[in-house]
């Protein structure tokens, strides 16, 4: 789109002057159309760039100053200590207590919120309230979880950037701005890796003790969920988006229900793909799980509209054991957005414990 703009804007004046034949006319019409649409699409960003460049020198000076101050403070506190933490691309060395620090992942933000740490830059549109505690109110908008706003980042001059799966493809770009740790959790190891991440964050921000305490809380909650679900039958995890349904396998990010809480899978043949396997309502009727674990994906990403409850309310679902016994458990949006984070474990473990502890045991067959 940007290349196109520059090309066509250099071309269009000449074609506009010589539009005699119908073909030329079309061409110029097309070009004008393209240019206008391209300009329209770019204009907000364009003005932003201008603004930024105008204040660039100012900001740079300011940042340099704050950085000096911070460094001075840090050297008093921790003698410029550096901490090695685990990342997807091997061990990464980051300054202890990095400031400013930018975090592009909801799982990490959740853990940081639980640790009582506020970050200096976080993406906009964070749907989960529980992680907003980690974002300081004057934090600049540094983009989304998928796309960094490089100008804002460069104005902020962070000492460290922490990213997760959604930002992982932009690692190289970010690593040029500041030391970046890719702390993605593998979908089939959300518990083990989540544990590691929480410990690492504790180490990084000098809160190891508190991190261990939080981990203990998570482990306790999971143990309770395991206890409540033992012998209560099998389960199927689905995600509902719009009116479409996907089944999630044990190895997917929603598979923690089976892997971590120990609930047997009603269908073990589900292949693991990012958003699950598309299935029909007939499939749900056939698999007939004792428990149905539902992620309302539209609700999780802040979309109103057809709720999962309405989608599932149909004659085929009514035939399943899960529906008849009212064994439909709605997972937290965190399970989808911030899988493996502190609040996700606490919320989902509690939901599962509450739902399953009341249910009678199912005879194993």
């Amino acid at each position, binding site marked *: 789109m940007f290349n196109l703009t520059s090309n066509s804007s250099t071309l269009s004046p000449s074609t506009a002057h010589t539009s005699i034949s119908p073909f030329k006319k079309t061409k110029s019409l097309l070009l004008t159309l393209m240019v206008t649409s391209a300009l329209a699409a770019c204009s907000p960003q364009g003005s932003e760039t201008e603004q930024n460049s105008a204040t660039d020198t100012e900001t740079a000076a300011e940042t340099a100053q704050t950085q000096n101050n911070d460094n001075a403070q840090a050297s008093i506190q921790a003698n410029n200590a550096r901490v090695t933490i685990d990342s997807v691309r091997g061990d990464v060395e980051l300054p202890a207590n990095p400031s400013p620090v930018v975090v592009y992942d909801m799982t990490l933000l959740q853990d940081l919120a639980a640790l009582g740490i506020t970050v200096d830059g976080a993406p906009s549109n964070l749907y989960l309230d529980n992680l907003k505690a980690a974002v300081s109110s004057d934090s600049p908008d540094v983009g989304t979880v998928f796309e960094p706003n490089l100008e804002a980042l460069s104005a902020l001059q962070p000492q460290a950037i922490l990213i997760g799966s959604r930002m992982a493809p932009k690692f190289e770009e970010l690593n040029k701005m500041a030391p970046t740790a890719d702390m993605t959790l593998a979908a089939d190891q959300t518990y083990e890796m989540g544990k590691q991440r929480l410990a690492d964050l504790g180490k990084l921000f000098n809160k190891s003790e508190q991190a261990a305490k939080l981990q203990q809380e998570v482990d306790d909650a999971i143990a309770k969920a395991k206890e409540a679900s033992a012998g209560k039958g099998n389960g199927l995890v689905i995600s509902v988006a719009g009116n479409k349904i996907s089944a999630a396998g044990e190895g997917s990010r929603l598979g923690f229900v089976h892997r971590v809480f120990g609930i047997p899978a009603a269908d073990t043949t589900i292949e693991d793909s990012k958003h699950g396997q*598309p299935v029909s309502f007939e499939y749900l009727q056939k698999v007939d799980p004792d428990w149905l674990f539902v992620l309302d994906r539209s609700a999780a990403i802040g*979309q109103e509209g057809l709720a999962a409850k309405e989608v599932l309310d149909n004659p085929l679902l009514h035939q399943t054991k899960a529906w008849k016994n009212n064994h439909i458990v709605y997972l937290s949006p965190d399970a989808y957005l911030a899988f493996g984070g502190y609040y996700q474990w606490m919320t989902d473990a509690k939901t599962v414990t509450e739902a399953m502890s009341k249910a009678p045991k199912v005879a194993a067959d």
Partner: protein
Amino acid sequence: MPISSTATYIKPSKPKTKRSPLLLNALSMLLLALLILMSLSLGVADFSWSGLWQAITQQSQSDDLQLLLVSRLPRTVAIILTGASLSVAGMILQVVLKNRFVDPSMVGATQSAGLGLLLISLYFPASTLLGKMLFATLCAIAGMFVFMRLIKYLPATDILMVPLVGIVFGGIIEAVTTFMAFQTESLQMLSIWRFGDFSSVLAGRYELLYLTGGLAFIAYLLADKLTIVGLGDAIATNLGVNKQSLIWFVILTVAMISSVVVVTVGAIPFVGLVVPNIISRMMGDRLRRSLPAVALLGASMVLLCDIIGRSINYPFEIPIATVFGVFGAAIFLWLLLRKPKPQPPINEGT
């Protein structure tokens, strides 16, 4: 290659080589009946025809009958309506625009419907399905109207200009939609709609599609007049056909069919392009003759692709948009690359 309908008109010897519509339609009907039977038998849940027969003869309540009425039949009917109406929409569009290379997704209709759907979902998330559909249709009409104005300025000599401009136009609308979805973080929601998929069709969730069937039928009633419009301005005027109102009818029909399909099942590429081309090669462009064949073949092809999508990854599904995308692209390439008969396009000037 009969590039424009006028070619068939000018050369009266041509229709002689066309196959008999009666035989073709009978075969098509047989194929469709076979596919319907397969579609009804194929599914994840347990279903048996003998169980169904028992239920009917003994007047008892049975799961088989319920399954048939709630899941299998609705899905099959939805597919037939979608396939037939998209193909008919493509055919009348091609005849009226005198261009073999256009379909509803190349005149901005599908994309505009998608934009409308996004807009109404963002600003009036609580609106009903009917409200969403009406707004999407309005947007599709507006999009097609702009496109019709655009192609007025095109040189009549270049047959590929119309689809090219259509693709650019559709691309611009899609880019705007994607940009808006990106800004509002609804890209995933958008991709869910855009992807044609019948897996969620159940009784009570597809009935809007009957509207498309009705529209396709009205198009059949007006078939002769539409054929005449396709012959050009002069002929239409001479034969006393109100060209303007018929073109509006085509715009409305195509816009409504594409938006209803987008809203209920999502976009399915190539249907409206490939099916009319195949039939047109066999039977020419006399719509009264060819529209039933177009509808039958469209229904069969979409049904076949859905059956494939349901069975190759059983019990999981592959969305119809993927399956038809693969088949449609292959067929379209074959249609393009087959040796064309040299025939100068004849243009009436717009």
